[in-house]
């Protein structure tokens, strides 16, 4: 150290001065670059640039179509097969004045809600098996749950049709165990519900499994040591702590099943249509685009409202748990 300290004053000063001048210029430039970069990368702009590609894509392919759909529901209505142009609320008054449409709307909400609830009931044991079971069990359950997604939903719906048919597999099985005249399932709400639960179950299991996997195992163990049975551990620890996952799953399943078209069409037929079927009829069969657009708008608003209310409730609860030290 001492010898190094000794050599510094011996350095030729003029040379050093020239160097430092150049270095100063250099730093000035790099500081400018740095400033520009930091302005560019400041949180306000970075966020914007990161979102831009998705924003452009959604703007062109989602937001614009939705806006034009809403516009078309307000700018024309069809009377006796003839389109009348001009601003109108006629499509919406028609939607709310008819008992038929209200029944279909109610059925859609009912099926979507029941699907979410049933899917949650089936999903919890599966999610626990995935997140808490051994690795081979977890893999097996995951594959079994995800495999149906590889099969087209049309094919699966027809599969359910052959099972739920009056002479189908289920009726045959019931006959074997001594129920000769089982109630008809096909073309009822029940058939739609059963198939919807099957089709949308993975969307409930996966977020639930990841939420449960995030729960610290020792928290469960602490509950058990403190005297909780396994059922109590589920009700008091796993259930409340997995609510964020349940919220995501329920919101996915509700949205998907309320907008479902193929499954209700194949299994519910015209006896038990949902909003999707109604929209298809208005647009493709009756050629009434403005009214179809109005029903679609109603569907979007309904799904959005339910999701927002739901997430709001869950978020408020969850925020309380993570309340930071203040």
């Amino acid at each position, binding site marked *: 150290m001492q010898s190094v300290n000794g050599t510094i004053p011996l350095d030729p000063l003029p040379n050093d001065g020239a160097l430092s001048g150049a270095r100063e210029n250099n730093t000035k430039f790099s500081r400018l670059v740095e400033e520009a970069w930091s302005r560019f990368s400041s949180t306000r702009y970075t966020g914007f640039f990161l979102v831009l590609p998705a924003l452009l894509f959604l703007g062109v392919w989602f937001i614009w179509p939705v806006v034009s759909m809403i516009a078309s529901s307000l700018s024309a209505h069809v009377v006796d097969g003839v389109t009348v142009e001009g601003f109108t609320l006629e499509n919406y008054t028609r939607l709310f004045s008819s008992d038929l449409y209200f029944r279909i709307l109610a059925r859609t909400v009912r099926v979507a809600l029941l699907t979410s609830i049933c899917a949650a009931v089936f999903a919890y044991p599966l999610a626990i098996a995935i997140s808490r079971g051994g690795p081979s069990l977890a893999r097996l359950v995951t594959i079994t749950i995800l495999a149906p997604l590889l099969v087209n939903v049309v094919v699966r719906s027809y599969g359910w049709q052959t099972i739920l048919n009056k002479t189908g597999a289920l009726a045959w099985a019931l006959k074997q165990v001594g129920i000769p005249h089982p109630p008809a399932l096909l073309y009822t709400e029940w058939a739609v519900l059963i198939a919807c639960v099957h089709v949308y179950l993975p969307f409930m299991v996966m977020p639930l499994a990841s939420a449960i996997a995030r729960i610290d195992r020792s928290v469960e163990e602490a509950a058990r040591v*403190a005297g909780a049975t396994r059922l109590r551990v589920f009700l008091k620890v796993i259930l409340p702590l997995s609510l964020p996952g349940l919220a995501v799953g329920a919101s996915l399943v509700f949205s998907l099943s309320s907008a479902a078209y193929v499954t209700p069409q194949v299994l519910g037929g015209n006896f038990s249509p949902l909003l999707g079927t109604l929209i298809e009829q208005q647009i493709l069969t009756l050629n009434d685009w403005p009214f179809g657009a109005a029903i679609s708008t109603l569907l979007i608003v309904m799904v959005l409202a339910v999701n927002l209310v739901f997430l709001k409730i869950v978020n408020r609860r969850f925020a309380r748990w993570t309340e930071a030290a203040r």
Partner: protein
Amino acid sequence: MSNPASISKTEGGSVTLRGISRSYGANQVVSDINLEARSGEILALLGPSGCGKTTTLRMIAGLVQPTAGDIAIDGRPITDLPVHRRNLGMLFQNYALFPHMTVLENVAFGLSMRGVEKAETAERAKRALALTHLTGFEDRMPSALSGGQQQRVALARAIVYRPKVLLLDEPFGALDKKLREAMQIELRQLCNELGLTTILVTHDQEEALVLADQIAVMRGGRIEQAASAREIYERPSSHFVADFIGTSNFISATILGKHDGKTTLKSASGQLFESLVATELGIGEKAVVAIRPESVRLSATGEATEAINARSGRVLRTVFKGQTLSVWLEMAGSEFVCALPIEAIGASPPQPGQIWTANWSAERTLIVREQ
């Protein structure tokens, strides 16, 4: 303690482990452990990571089933009793508080699981919080507490229902040194006041020495030695124990003779040692002589000598540690460390490069098994 009598002193249960083993496939994690924690005693399971201490604790809790052996509390077998019916309290390394419950709800959990009436539950939970100095924190969420406070909540949650036994799994590992020491003393007081039998898992020898009445040193799934802290330190039974608890200088030797409680040993280089410490090892058996750094006295000889219980070497380095001066001597290619009390150092302390002679008394010459 603000109110020591608020949770009445209960008779802690005695815990007996008989031939406890646990294996995962071919991997034997715990083999044939026999151990007893007497009522009201603090027992530490001490060992390096992977020695099976945590598995042993989890078997007592019921979170892991032993593959062989019996566990009994107060003589009653609990091996087949499910976790929630064992009536134990447990502290986890990461506290494991319920993040969605307030402090009071966390503490009250065990009571409500036992069907205790609501008013009484709140009352008792508050008393447990007072005992752990957390009065006023009832409505906070765990995430709004510091690590030390969370640990206190976990402690209150574990003792509120008067468990037979308190189990601690590396409870203070995540706390800083000062807080850890304060919590250790506090825990010891609390356990003694409540008469709680406590079983503690730790890899920190100091923590075991501070807290435990009995220390079981574990290695490779077995117990190397189980005895009081003082006996473990002063009479380690094996090389491993002497090395794990405190620091020791080791010299391999063979037992030459035993006479009147005095054992004579000879090292490979022909040096003789005498020990007054009792040993089970017989004449002709291989042994290791262990000398604690603080048992050593140093004298400046200036030349190499090898008398009985004395060895000289060149000073490699010295480190001032506050109360002691550590001196490393080079002896026959290995290092020999001495810890000299500051008062014992004269006007000319050892300097690197000098030759000094270390000597120690026969009472302080420990004989341990090789393995």
